[in-house]
């Protein structure tokens, strides 16, 4: 049990460290931009936009909040990200970390 707890803390620390590096170097912005570009290119953005429109129409513009939309859209949005986009991003992060530790 203690092991799991310890690992969780270590993971969190590692994540914080990586994130700090990503922000500091501007890599985070570059990754964000790459992701945005890829999602536009593969039609993800259009698909999700269309879905948002449907949800808004269904619930009525007057009654819907961003929180509603976020909870409706998030699972679908996650599921629709193509595998090769995820792979490319993961590889980019790996490359970045390899460069950082050099």
């Amino acid at each position, binding site marked *: 049990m203690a092991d799991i707890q310890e690992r969780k803390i270590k993971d969190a620390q590692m*994540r914080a460290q990586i*994130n700090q590096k990503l922000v500091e170097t*501007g*890599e985070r912005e570059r990754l964000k*931009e790459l992701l945005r570009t890829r999602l536009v290119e593969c039609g993800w953005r259009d698909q999700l936009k269309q879905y948002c429109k449907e949800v808004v129409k269904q619930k009525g513009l007057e009654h819907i909040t961003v929180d509603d939309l976020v909870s409706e859209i998030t699972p679908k949005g996650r599921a629709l990200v193509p595998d090769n986009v995820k792979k490319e991003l993961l*590889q980019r992060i*790996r*490359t970045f970390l390899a460069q950082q530790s*050099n």
Partner: protein
Amino acid sequence: MSCNGCQHLDELKKQHGTEPYKIIYSHFIVCKSADARRRKANQCICYVCRLYTPRLHACMSCVYIGCYGRGHIHEHAYKKEHYLAIDVCYGVVHCFACQDYVYDKELEEIARASTPKLALGVGIKMTFLEWEPNDQEIDLLRRNAKRRRVEERSTIGLRGLINLGNTCFMNCIVQALIHTPVLRDYFLADKHNCNIHMNLNNNNQCLVCELSQIFQEFYSGIQAPHIPYRLLHLVWTSARHLAGYEQQDAHEFLIAALDLLHQHCQATNGNVESGRPHHCNCIIDQIFTGGLQSDVTCKQCNNVSTTIDPIWDVSLDLGPASPATNGSHSSSLCSGYSNSPGNYDPTSLIDCLKRFTKPEHLGSSAKIKCSCCHSYQESTKQLTMKKLPIVACFHLKRFEHSTGYHKKIATYVSFPEELDMTPFMSSSRNNNNGYSLQVVQEAARSLSCENKYSLFAVVNHSGTIECGHYTCYVRQHKDQWFKCDDHLITKAMPQEVLNSEGYLLFYHKQILEYS
């Protein structure tokens, strides 16, 4: 969701103006300097979680940072009655009293104005911006309410071309150009603003306008074959060497057409160069021009002299290379970038490209003056792609014109549907980074689509050199192929396309940079 802010935001703006937004925006959302980014990396965490979590918000009254997911920014907002907070990722303002994001024109303007600075600061060349219609376009959209949607199975854009007497060499190139996605987008967006009437004396017709007209014809929905007599007339008057009712070489026509289109695009600028592609910003050069790097290494002192030439196509040798063909020149106008080292028969496009980019030994009969040794020395020469064009056009040199004989090389050369140009790039040649890093980078590159191309048109020649016929396969949508045989259009299977002989192969870059 309100587009006009809310009373709470109005109140805050009345008291402090847009200053709080500007300060938070420039510190946490766009960081121009490395310093600012370091600060952001250290400070931008949820004050409760002590972590960088998704959807962090910064309070507009006291810059308290809390996460949205676990409600820590909510807690702060209600406890302190600081109802307005900015999402640190996107810069949008949330009002916790109204329980929703609020949109304010003035703040949006501030955000819009600072985004490019952010991009520059971290080396992003150009960010994708969504198309927003201007007033004129809004007016046009309003007046033309009918929209046409191109469905997946739609055959719009497919039309045969009447043969006007051995003009299949022209028809197949027109089909390839019409099915070039970026070129289509350019013309269907009505981007050619013509000024040519004033500038080309005697010849007040513009080939770009004519091509634009042909695009309109192809996308009009009419199914009957189009008669390209105006185009033919224009070609005859502009490129005299192609005039007459004889069969011409489709590759020669392609280069002549690109050159004419480029000249007519540029006619307004006054300094028209013809004969070869160059660093020009016209749509033809934007799409077709690549950069070919030539490295000549002196055998004596290893000094490398590098030149980069713009090219519109790559001409590839077939058949075994004999020493005599070294340094041969293609007869066509402005291609003829070819290289013939190696003495094996290439059987695939990749083989051809390997041969094309292989270091070639320039023997004692072809000594080059070395700028280092100040004397003529033997050297090796290597060609690589410095800059990849959006459309890569490969010309398989199936016609051999030597003194005394002309013959066609009908060897089978396979070509892929998807082509990765990475191995043939200058950067691959120069790759001498640290080993481990290189491995990682290579893995990243092979996954990335950066240098990947998709086949979208194949021009074929059947028959003999004296008596032959040109046809063209074109791709519609993602994977539907059609054979264009003058006025006839028939459906084709991808395998049929890949099994065809291939004379001109057109590949389209999978990913475009926004620049």
